């Protein structure tokens, strides 16, 4: 048995989610190899070689993989992946984009967003926005899997000494090209790996009022998230959405401000260790999952919270 993990990276930094995926690979068992596909991604390969428990790093450094276009990347991963028992990547937007293509090219099912490994062919995953947890068994020869990072404790980023091997094959499907990217810039921690997250909902009323949350976040070293309603209303950009169809977070502390607690929002944060809700409606469903609930007007409570930190 051998597991191929496709690294999550931006050509310069290995994303921490990869460490959670390697943890899932360890639970499956067998040799673990990492594929780094990108352009000018040597530093990522070096970082991957240091990850604990990895035996080999394959590097496909070529312009065709520079923007992780799914059409190109999936051809590479399918070509390499057929020689492994399992192919894994994190269930971020890149993995969700290319991995199902890999599965289709290999004519196998994909098991999406696993949160637990039962055995080499049996995995646990949430369905219905996390309102049910399914255990599924795959009968395919190659198991193609995306991993929900919050389901697995990261392996150590250091301590390994894998060999690094270049992969020459460069696939250009010739059907797509990259045009542009607008990436959110922030000095705050990344939402999906932050230890503390403070999120705002429709109750925030507008984008300017999120400033209150940024101030609290900066004092706590927290990331800032949002409900879909806040994103839809244009208060904040889409990359801040937490939930079934946004980002999944499981920090030590999650503070929901002016968020009612719809099932789709809960799906993205109910695995947080401690949940705080600040809402003026004491009947709001968010209080059913909150460890500490404060029934208050957020425009009073949030500035007071900031001052008392």
């Amino acid at each position, binding site marked *: 048995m051998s597991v191929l993990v496709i690294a999550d990276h931006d050509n310069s930094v290995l994303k921490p989610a990869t460490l959670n995926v390697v943890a899932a690979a360890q639970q499956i068992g067998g040799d673990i190899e990492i594929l780094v596909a990108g352009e000018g991604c040597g530093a990522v390969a070096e970082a991957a070689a240091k990850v604990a428990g990895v035996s080999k790093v394959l590097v496909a450094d070529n312009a065709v993989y520079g923007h992780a276009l799914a059409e190109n990347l999936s051809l590479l991963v399918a070509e390499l992946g057929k020689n492994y028992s399992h192919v894994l990547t994190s269930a971020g937007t890149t993995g969700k984009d290319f991995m199902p293509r890999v599965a289709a090219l290999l*004519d196998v099912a994909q098991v999406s967003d696993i949160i637990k490994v*039962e055995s080499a062919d049996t995995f646990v995953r949430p369905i219905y926005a996390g*309102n049910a947890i399914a255990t599924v068994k795959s009968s395919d020869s190659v198991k193609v899997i995306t991993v929900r990072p919050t389901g697995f404790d990261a392996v150590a980023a250091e301590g390994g000494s894998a060999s690094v091997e270049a992969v020459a094959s460069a696939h250009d499907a010739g059907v*797509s090209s*990259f045009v542009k990217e607008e990436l959110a810039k922030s000095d705050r921690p990344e939402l999906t790996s932050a230890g503390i997250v403070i999120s705002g909902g429709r109750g925030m009323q507008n984008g300017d009022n999120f400033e209150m949350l940024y101030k609290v976040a900066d004092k706590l070293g927290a990331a800032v998230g949002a409900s879909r309603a806040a994103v839809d209303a244009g208060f904040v950009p889409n990359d801040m959405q937490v939930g079934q169809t946004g980002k999944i977070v499981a920090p030590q502390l999650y503070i929901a401000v002016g968020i009612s607690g719809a099932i*789709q929002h809960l799906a993205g944060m109910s695995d947080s260790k401690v949940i705080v809700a600040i809402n003026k409606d004491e009947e709001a469903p968010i209080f059913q999952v909150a460890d*500490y*609930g404060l029934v208050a007007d957020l425009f009073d409570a949030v500035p007071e919270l900031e001052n008392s930190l």
Partner: protein
Amino acid sequence: MKVLVAVKRVIDYNVKVRVKSDNTDVDLTNIKMAMNPFCEIAVEEAVRLKEKGVATEVVVVSIGPKASQEQIRTALALGADRGIHIETEEQVQSLAAAKLLKAVVEKEQPQLIILGKQSIDTDNNQTGQMLAALCGYGQGTFASEVVVEGDKVNVTREIDGGLATVSLNLPAVVTTDLRLNEPRYASLPNIMKAKKKPLDIISPADLGVDIAPRLSTVKVEAPAQRQAGVKVGSVAELVDKLKNEAKVI
């Protein structure tokens, strides 16, 4: 340009599903069903392309039990021209759905195929990508903007870090994200008109596709329930609890 839209019948998004007591599945008896919300957005986008004169025909396809025809009729009431129902009582997993859709693509030869990014029942997020791979087409997943220009389509995608735009050769596959558009409601006259629009019914066997499942469900359980905690009386009490009881700040 012909546009093909795939719509799935799923549980209504407002309903909180319960797990059956024998842990074999969720209980869908007497539960309100509806069109998957992402598929509504897909239909809306196709209809808007037609209204703009970019699309000439919108064909909608659904795979599932007889009752899926309700969702096809809804799409027709929203402005699609014609429906195809691939009728089966069997469970159809994403790979099988993609293969069935590919067979329809071969027959219909659409230039653009729009799907939802994710079914809200299985939360798979796979079918559009699989269909694109099987057809050898480019894909614009999690789309928040779709612009057809000549023989290409530019798709703006919602990604973890922000937004990314790709240019795809047509034919291409697009999967919709929530902010692509806001679907309209069907008017009563349009609901009446939709009843007369053509709807073909075929079977997976007609398309020569093996839909045998690759994944089997061992069990389905309810998630661990969180205990509702305490209400605190003030911000000061909250900060004290977070520092000294939960020890998270």
